[in-house]
């Protein structure tokens, strides 16, 4: 009798827990009843998009739709999660996608709900072009971009006999050749590296080229493309001797950032926060309204709406609202994410923004001009990341003295031919 009672209660417990799981599944996936009007939407981002709870509360106040915001720690975590669940279940109603792996997502454009046609033209041309699939559908809502300026240490510049005024410094770097010449002068005068990382220069140069490793029809041109080889040669010959490190984000790199080991960095808007956050005690950082060889963009993100979500229409509304110029300006105020929307670029809040840490530089104005200087939209195919990573490794090998210039290049060619 006892055992029978136990069995019954065990079954009851099992049934309850199963239904609890089912309920939990429902709430995290959003309510499936489209006709009643959804109550809750989920939004998944990473790092810091500037979407604070207060900002999302404004959306709730306007539409009555609750938004649950999930933040992944890094873009890589978000990427893993996105591709494991895309086309299946479990993705949020609105997902954030970083430009680095956007090309991979573009392969599955049919699994994403396209942006309504009337929103076309909201973003900068090249931002939209990069998010348009083969059929001409815009599949993602642009959020921020990373127009680059040059960050420099005015105190170190002064010590090396270089100009320190923002406008004078900007005049130093019209082309990459000038940049390397000034760098060589600085290194000769001080014996210290001029720029933080050789691979940052590599991406700076390659982000000014429309086609690097792949062509839109899928042809791989990486190893024959003279542009790539030229960039590699330039970086190895000219950037490595004046660089403190091969790559960024290492323990040593952060330590040098604080100790003032190098005098310049290529600076997209989001890098300003990285510098001031990791070297709070350091003084003398400033930003010049210049970028060698024209403008350059580094980073930025999009929002996408998975097509098989339960509340596609409402999700589109949310993505539309979040990427509207007004909201993006608020996000910029919250987290410094520089807007990709044309209208936002003329916003007074943006233009009047200054940065105390960077010697009160008018960062809003400078970055707006840097954004206007970006003319090329680099085509990044699905294997861009692999090719670029391998090329960065090639530069690092030369930097570390593991291989000479030719050997390292040949090893790169062998390596990428197997992709």
């Amino acid at each position, binding site marked *: 009798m006892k055992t029978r009672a136990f069995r019954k209660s065990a079954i009851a417990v099992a049934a309850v827990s199963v239904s609890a799981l089912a309920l939990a599944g429902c709430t995290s996936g959003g309510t499936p009843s489209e006709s009643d009007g959804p109550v809750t939407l989920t939004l998944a981002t990473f790092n810091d998009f500037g979407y604070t709870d207060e900002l999302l509360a404004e959306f709730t106040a306007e539409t009555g739709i609750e938004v649950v915001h999930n933040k992944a720690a890094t873009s890589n975590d978000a990427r*893993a999660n996105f*591709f*494991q669940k*895309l*086309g*299946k279940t479990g993705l949020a109603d609105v997902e954030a996608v970083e430009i680095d792996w956007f090309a*991979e997502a573009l392969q*599955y454009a049919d*699994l994403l709900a396209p942006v309504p046609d009337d929103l076309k033209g909201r973003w900068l041309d090249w931002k939209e072009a990069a998010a348009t699939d083969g059929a001409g559908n815009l599949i993602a809502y642009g959020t921020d971009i990373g127009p680059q300026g040059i960050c420099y240490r005015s105190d170190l510049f002064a010590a090396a006999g270089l100009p320190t005024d923002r406008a004078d410094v900007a005049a130093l770097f019209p082309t990459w050749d000038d940049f390397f010449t000034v760098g060589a002068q600085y290194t000769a005068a001080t014996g210290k590296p001029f720029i933080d990382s050789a691979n940052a220069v590599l991406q700076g140069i390659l982000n000014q080229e429309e086609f690097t490793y792949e062509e839109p029809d899928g042809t791989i041109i990486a190893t024959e493309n003279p542009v790539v080889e030229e960039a590699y040669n330039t970086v190895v010959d000219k950037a490595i001797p004046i660089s403190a490190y*091969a*790559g*960024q*984000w*290492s*323990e*040593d*790199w952060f*330590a*040098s950032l604080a100790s003032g080991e190098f005098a310049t960095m290529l600076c997209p808007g989001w890098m300003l926060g990285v510098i001031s956050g990791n070297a709070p005690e350091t003084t003398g950082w400033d930003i010049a309204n210049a970028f060698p060889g024209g403008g350059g963009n580094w980073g930025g993100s999009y929002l996408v709406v998975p097509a098989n979500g339960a509340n596609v229409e409402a999700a589109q509304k949310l993505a539309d609202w979040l990427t509207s110029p007004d909201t993006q300006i608020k996000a910029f105020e919250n987290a410094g994410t520089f807007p990709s929307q044309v209208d936002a670029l003329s916003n007074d809040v943006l233009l009047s923004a200054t940065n105390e840490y960077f010697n009160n530089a008018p960062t809003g104005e400078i970055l707006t001009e840097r954004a206007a200087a970006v003319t090329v939209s680099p085509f990044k195919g699905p294997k861009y*990341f*692999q090719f670029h*990573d391998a090329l*960065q*490794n*090639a*530069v*690092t*090998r030369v930097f*570390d*003295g*593991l*291989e000479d210039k030719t050997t390292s290049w040949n090893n790169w060619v*062998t*390596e990428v031919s*197997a992709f």
Partner: protein
Amino acid sequence: MTAATARDAQPDAPKPVRVISFSHRLSRWDLKLSPYLYISPFFIMFAIVGIFPIVYTAVISFQDWDLVRNSGTFVGFDQYIWILTQPHFWTALRNTFSIFLLSSVPQLIFALFIASVLDRNIRAKTFWRMAVLLPFVVAPVAVGLIFNVVFADNFGLVNGMLTDIGLPAIQWHKDPFWSHVAIATMVNYRWTGYNTLILLAAMQAVNREYYEAATVDGAGPIRQFFSITLPSLKPTLIFVIITSTIGGLQIFDEPRVFDQFGRGGAGQQWLTISLYLYDVGWGQWNFGRAAAMAWILFIIILGIGLINLIVTRSLVRDEGLRTELSKREKRRAVAEAKATAAAKAAAAAKAKEVTR
């Protein structure tokens, strides 16, 4: 049986009989099926979490797999061929074995030493034993982050000390050997304590009378360690060696967090097999190749496991059953027994003759 056939013969048999026969049947089922039912949870679990993933990985490894669309095209052994022709794979294999040797060997020596110290009569035994296990509690990634500060190339703790006493700084993230040393140090930091405790438990099981007898015979602690402790530890040592082999060949966390990119270095200095597998699978989203590599790793571990088994067999007679004899010894014993029996028989015959 009879009840069932009787009922079959008379379909319109009275109801009570039917009920009885059904319960009979139930009880017979109970007798025959219940044992399987009782042991089935293990097999069901094993099928779900053991067999299924292995077989599914094998299926994927023969395909060009698209994770998002959950579909693939059959490509035969192409993925295996691709992996075996990658220079990265062979570098990764070299690194894996190098890190494995650099971690397992010193680890076991240290663990043995610490365990034998703890086995002595010392004050605050429990405190020391707990202290030894403490690093094991720290998560591997946390260990990696801590040791990154220690092993940074320019501003690291170790290099700081080296340059202070006038030695050249070591290029931890450039030279393959030193990167392996650094990674092996993280592994050793975590696992030495764990192995120490296992070895300590085995040491405490050794009969104390042996030591007393040895002391009476005048053997010192070192002699006692090599002549009593070490031989008694053989089965445990082999267990520890096998587990650290499997762990060593699957090493992932420590090389993954060794630099900021987690892909084994620009020149693949510290790329291990599982790190390479992860990069191919989750970096390049090529699950066909990753699955093929998982199978190659599986086969490698299986091969080394077999070698371990053979070594085990020859070192320890039938894993702990120390009374049982090896084949050679059996043969010798049989031969000896025969010889003594023959000798006895001969002696008996002689004795008979004598009595006659």
